[in-house]
């Protein structure tokens, strides 16, 4: 239970929390839609441990506090959870967001409707939202930037920060033609939150934040002086490693990633010492065509679901997904591919969790869980 050290777990206490719209998180208060009371038996937050690194006096800003040189916690992963009053599923759901976003992606939609976090709780899942390591409320390693600031490293050595723009969002989220702000005719994303139509806002873009993933270490402490030895989860601090720790702590969990993080559940399952991943849900790809026989031997015991939405210009599933499905299913595993248009659900964007029919898409996932995760 290392990762839950310090957690405010209230499982022994039955809580009836009524979350009325007035207290629900959203970016535009006026847009909040009413929803019935939500009854919980627990809620809280905690961190999966990071590691401490020494910070020399010269790297403390402002320098007036240089005498406070010491150790600083780095790359810890923030987790928040809600547990429904009546748990209806064996395993909890652990969800991680994609590039340039945070766990806000799963909460109230930019136009004020119910997000997936609340919906999964209402459908009886213990639901855990995680922030990727180095993003939002999780920790990140700022030391390199300080080294550049004081001249101990060249500016070119700073890790790149990924900044997503509106133009990029229109392209990769598959909304339509950015040059004319014309969405697809059947687009399900709430386009009035990205500047389309009279009275529209730019509310969605409040969710888009800089991505500092390139600050994460490629080489772990203890692996930097010549030859590598296999790492243990406790020696690494990436998001997949922290998700593996969380799944272990929970004694079993279904992991769901999206886009940039769509491969993280698989990577978590393959971490040394990982034994808690009971289901993998990867939204919009996350496939691997570089799996070893040992990897497949692990993954064939874990049900895997791939979900893709509409308006792709390239064939789906992608070649890596075809290859992985052949490998996993050929080994006796259970890997499912669902294209939403193929089952009659049209117009969804890359951000299907925020689309107008987001709860319908969530039902597709819940139905798969009920039939495949035992």
């Amino acid at each position, binding site marked *: 239970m290392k990762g839950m050290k310090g957690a405010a777990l209230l499982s022994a206490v039955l809580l009836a929390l009524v979350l009325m719209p007035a207290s629900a998180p959203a970016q535009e208060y006026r847009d909040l839609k009413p929803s019935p009371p939500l009854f919980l038996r627990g809620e809280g937050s905690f961190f999966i441990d990071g590691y401490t690194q020494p910070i020399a006096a010269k790297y403390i800003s402002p320098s007036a506090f240089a005498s406070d040189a010491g150790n600083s916690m780095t790359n810890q992963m923030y987790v928040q959870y809600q547990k429904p009053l009546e748990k209806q599923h064996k395993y909890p759901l652990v969800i991680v967001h994609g590039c340039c976003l945070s766990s806000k992606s799963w909460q109230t939609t930019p136009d004020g409707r119910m997000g997936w976090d609340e919906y999964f709780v209402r459908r009886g899942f213990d639901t855990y939202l995680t922030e990727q390591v180095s993003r939002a409320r999780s920790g990140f390693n700022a030391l390199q930037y300080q080294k550049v600031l004081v001249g101990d490293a060249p500016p070119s050595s700073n890790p790149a920060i990924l900044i997503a723009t509106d133009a990029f969002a229109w392209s990769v989220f598959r909304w339509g033609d950015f040059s004319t702000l014309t969405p697809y005719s059947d687009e399900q994303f709430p386009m009035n939150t990205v500047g389309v139509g009279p009275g529209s806002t730019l509310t969605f873009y409040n969710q888009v934040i800089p991505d500092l993933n*390139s600050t994460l270490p*490629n080489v772990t402490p203890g692996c930097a002086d010549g030859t590598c030895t296999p790492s243990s989860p406790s020696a690494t601090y990436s998001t997949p490693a922290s998700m593996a720790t969380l799944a272990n702590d929970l004694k079993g969990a279904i992991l769901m990633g999206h886009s940039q993080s769509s491969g993280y559940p698989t990577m978590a399952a393959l971490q040394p010492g990982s034994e808690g991943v009971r289901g993998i849900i990867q939204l919009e790809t996350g496939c691997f065509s570089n799996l070893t026989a040992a990897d497949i031997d692990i993954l064939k015991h874990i049900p895997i679901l791939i979900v893709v939405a509409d308006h792709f210009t390239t064939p789906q599933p992608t070649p890596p997904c075809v290859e992985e499905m052949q490998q996993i299913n050929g080994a006796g595993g259970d890997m499912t591919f669902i294209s939403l248009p193929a089952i009659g659900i049209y117009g969804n964007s890359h951000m299907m969790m925020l689309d107008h029919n987001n709860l319908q898409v969530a039902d597709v996932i819940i139905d798969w869980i009920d039939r495949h995760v035992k």
Partner: protein
Amino acid sequence: MIFAALITASPLLYVATVTTFGCTSIDEITKLQSIRLERKAFQTELYEQIFDGQCVEIARGTLVEGSIEIRNSSMLLVDRQIEPPGFEAPLRDFKLKPTGGKK
């Protein structure tokens, strides 16, 4: 084959000599290599692959754990020990880090 297996069983440290990339698919690496000189097309493809979690950028000077890919000796399998199943990357963009006799 036996030699390759021995190599993959003993990951070593490599240094990226240029800013490069790693992907979960050899085919994607091959595709990116084929358009590498077409700056805009290359950056667009790489950016989208990074966004989708299929590739990562590896900055020049980055130290990675790596082993020669058994299926394609022009590829380096990067960070398999740290983040399995790891990423494929163009071997020619890396040099082996001298160990200095340390174990």
